[in-house]
């Protein structure tokens, strides 16, 4: 029987997972929107962020340090990856871009497996946020509650960067028409590098703040990658607000279906994606012609 507290806590789980998906997906979607590259290594980057945070936590014992280190490390990984490999693929067909990012994702996963083995690693939540909090009719783990706020702050930061800064203006213009931005005398390739770095940082940040909730394994990114695809298809490619909306929808679908029968979570998620594809082929907030 489904009780109210149970339902509410699942609703909260969905919110937390949805916010997380929104953050990862917005990284994926701004990279795709600006560079035209679908980063199949994005799930692996999420996983890398978790492991980088784990290493930093083991060394410093501080969760805050872990979050900062994990995020910065992924920023560096993103920039290096763009400079060394991805930029050679802008002029190549999209299939090649998919193949190379797919290959890089495998390398990331296997490198981590090589150094950390397949055994699970855990990062405890910061001391301030351990335990449970009573929310009137139900109790809920404090860190999960805080996670919604932390991810919301990160999304807000991303929003400010995208919509309130000069760089964000260029990025959004680049999503609409990167050729036009180029002809306005802006070095789009530098923008591409920064965008890839930001997208990677979003994935890395999500990876480390999520680490106290789930155990870390090298394969943790794979499932997330598939979910972010669904989010992007639902929300519309290249749309930040679409990614946020799609993330929340996907999170709630997974969470609420799991309450009834976990086996059908993906089926429902897929059904939602199909429905969107049939009714609005370009996603809820996507526009035509961004393919």
């Amino acid at each position, binding site marked *: 029987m489904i009780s109210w507290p149970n339902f509410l806590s699942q609703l909260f789980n969905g919110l937390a997972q949805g916010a997380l998906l929104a953050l990862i997906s917005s990284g994926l979607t701004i990279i795709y929107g600006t560079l035209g590259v679908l980063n199949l290594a994005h799930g692996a980057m999420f996983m890398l962020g978790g492991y980088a945070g784990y290493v930093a936590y083991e060394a410093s014992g501080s969760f805050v340090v872990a979050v900062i280190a994990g995020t910065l490390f992924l920023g560096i990984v993103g920039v290096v990856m763009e400079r060394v490999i991805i930029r050679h693929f802008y002029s*190549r067909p*999209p299939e090649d871009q*998919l193949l190379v990012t*797919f290959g890089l994702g495998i390398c990331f996963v296997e490198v981590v*497996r090589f150094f950390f083995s397949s055994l699970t690693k855990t990062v405890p939540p910061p001391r301030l946020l351990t335990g449970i909090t009573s929310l009137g009719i139900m109790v809920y783990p404090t860190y999960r509650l805080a996670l919604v706020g932390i991810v919301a702050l990160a999304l807000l930061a991303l929003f400010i960067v995208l919509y309130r800064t000069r760089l964000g203006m260029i990025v959004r213009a680049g999503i609409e028409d990167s050729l036009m931005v180029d002809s306005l005398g802006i070095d789009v390739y530098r923008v591409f590098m920064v965008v890839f770095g930001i997208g990677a940082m979003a994935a890395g940040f999500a990876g480390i703040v999520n680490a106290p909730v789930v155990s870390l394994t090298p394969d943790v990114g794979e499932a997330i990658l598939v979910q972010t695809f669904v989010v992007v298809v639902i929300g519309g490619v290249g749309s930040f607000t679409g990614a946020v909306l799609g993330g929340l929808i996907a999170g709630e679908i997974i969470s609420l279906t799991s309450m009834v*029968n976990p*086996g059908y979570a993906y089926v429902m998620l897929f059904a939602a994606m199909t429905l969107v594809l049939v009714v609005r082929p370009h996603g809820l907030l996507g526009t035509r012609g961004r393919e």
Partner: protein
Amino acid sequence: MLGQRRFLIETLTAIGLIAVPFVLPYLGSAPNTVNRILVWGLFGIGFDILFGYTGLLSFGQSALYGTGGFVAAYLLTRAGFPHVILALIIGMIAAAIVGCLVGLIALRRTGIYFAMITVAIAEVFYFVEFNPLSAWTGGENGLPGVPTPSFYLGFTTIHFTSGWSLYPFLALCYFIGIVLALRIVRSPVGAIFSAIRENPLRAAALGHNIHAYKLTAFVVAAAYAGFAGGLLGVLQAFMPPEAFTFDTSGQLVIQTAIGGRGTLFGPLLGAAVWLFLQDFLQATLGLGAAWKLVLGLVFVLLICFLRNGIIGGFKDLYRYLRSTRGTPADLQESASLPGLGADDEPTAAAAEGARNPAARPINPRHHAGTDATVPVLQATGLTKHYGGVIANADIDFTVNQGELRGIIGPNGAGKSTFFKMLTCEVPPTSGKIVFEGRDITGMNVVDVCQLGLTKSYQVNQLFNRLTVRENVTIAALAERRGKFRLDMLRSPSKISGLREQVERTLELVNLTARRDTPVSQLAYGEKRRLEVGLALAASPTLLLLDEPLAGMSPGERAETVKLLKSISQGRTMIIIDHDMDALFELAERITVLQEGRVLVEGKPDEIKRNPQVQEAYLGGMHEVQVTQ
């Protein structure tokens, strides 16, 4: 080159497959590894048709592999069905049906979206296998006890068991698979698959229903996947649930990319590299789990530096060696070739742009009941708005049978938009288009081309990696076969009149000598002529040409004008161009567009003298001079 002799590849494959059990044991390879390579290779043939030939990269083939495998395994184990081969075929059909449904959803979008959707769908299948359907599929335990096939021959029974004993059965399956695949890629359908990979927009504009062909490729790939999935169960005597994982799809993609996409044999080679390297790195070098890291790095390097995989690399090397060693002979050959097309012209002039005066124009298709007095095309009140921008406003336009109409106008006058509306590439905001008495407003570009209205593009839209002859063939196929036909096992040489139509078109646009050159190696002027040739090979009753002279040198222009004159005989044509001298020479009537409207229409002489036209082109000059 390989493939020119009939059945050469088939024969070589058969010899290779027969030789394997006599050779490989001495090289220390286990029969089980060889058998697994064959199953991956067969799985990959279908995937290569989908990815290498049609250009659709799916990361969800595991769904179909698993479906075929589990249907066959379920029949053979739980349902007690006795016929192995029949069970495999039923599994294949089940996978094809599922593939058709999956394709209908995934193919709603193209490119990157397609890849994402296939990943998501495959993940759903994985979860469905594990949970809702676990009563049938055994969930995470899979289905053990899949039997191996045996044949009763009347006097004796051949029983395939495992190892080298199973090999002949798998080799036979692979051989049949490769023979069928070779026929498919050489058929008209195969040619259209490549056209879709190279330029889907043009393939559709030439009258091919590309959506239906993409779905066909998807279903073919699904059928191969389903059969291979069934074989996996037979091979292991157990149907593993891992068949459904993302890893399966990923491994297939990697193997195909390593071996070489678009080669059919690439996946087999890739699987061999993958499985032998795995054995070598794990067992011989003792790398343990790190083998996958090494393979991942190899894969990334290969994508970066050898984009067509190992087979593609060898092909390039072969071509390179041939071109460096054979330079003098090749030069001679290419210098003498153009003479073929022009017997009575000096060779120097023939080398660029001259054409055989005897070349007969291709007859446009004739429709029963076409009345010469009825206009071929009649547009009324044609209007197109892009947001607030008015590209075309209230255009009334009529072209009669056999007419050659010119359209001129300054840049931004809306000429190309007008053409796009006529060919139904973009729908008009308002207005009506009637072609040969039929209202075509709101139809799609495929159907309109099938009715006999097509255009050549302002910017070349060719199939770049195909040869000139293949390009023209693809255009001619649409007219010969209609917008969709499943003649997957037919050779194009069996289509009556196709060869002649292609040859005549090549002759007409003077590309006969270049027929086997890939388009990417043509000079600009040649590409431009091919662009016209593509539209021409579709044998339209009404041919639209969007700036056929754009970017040409004066010499090329003169030649092209001659070409246009010769093809205009017995055909209705509308030409847009900025070269007024050429248009005044060619066209019987000229329509002048300005700011999206018809400014004036009349005979060339009238247009030349028209003060409004002079104003439109030279307008503002007086004012500029005054202010200076």
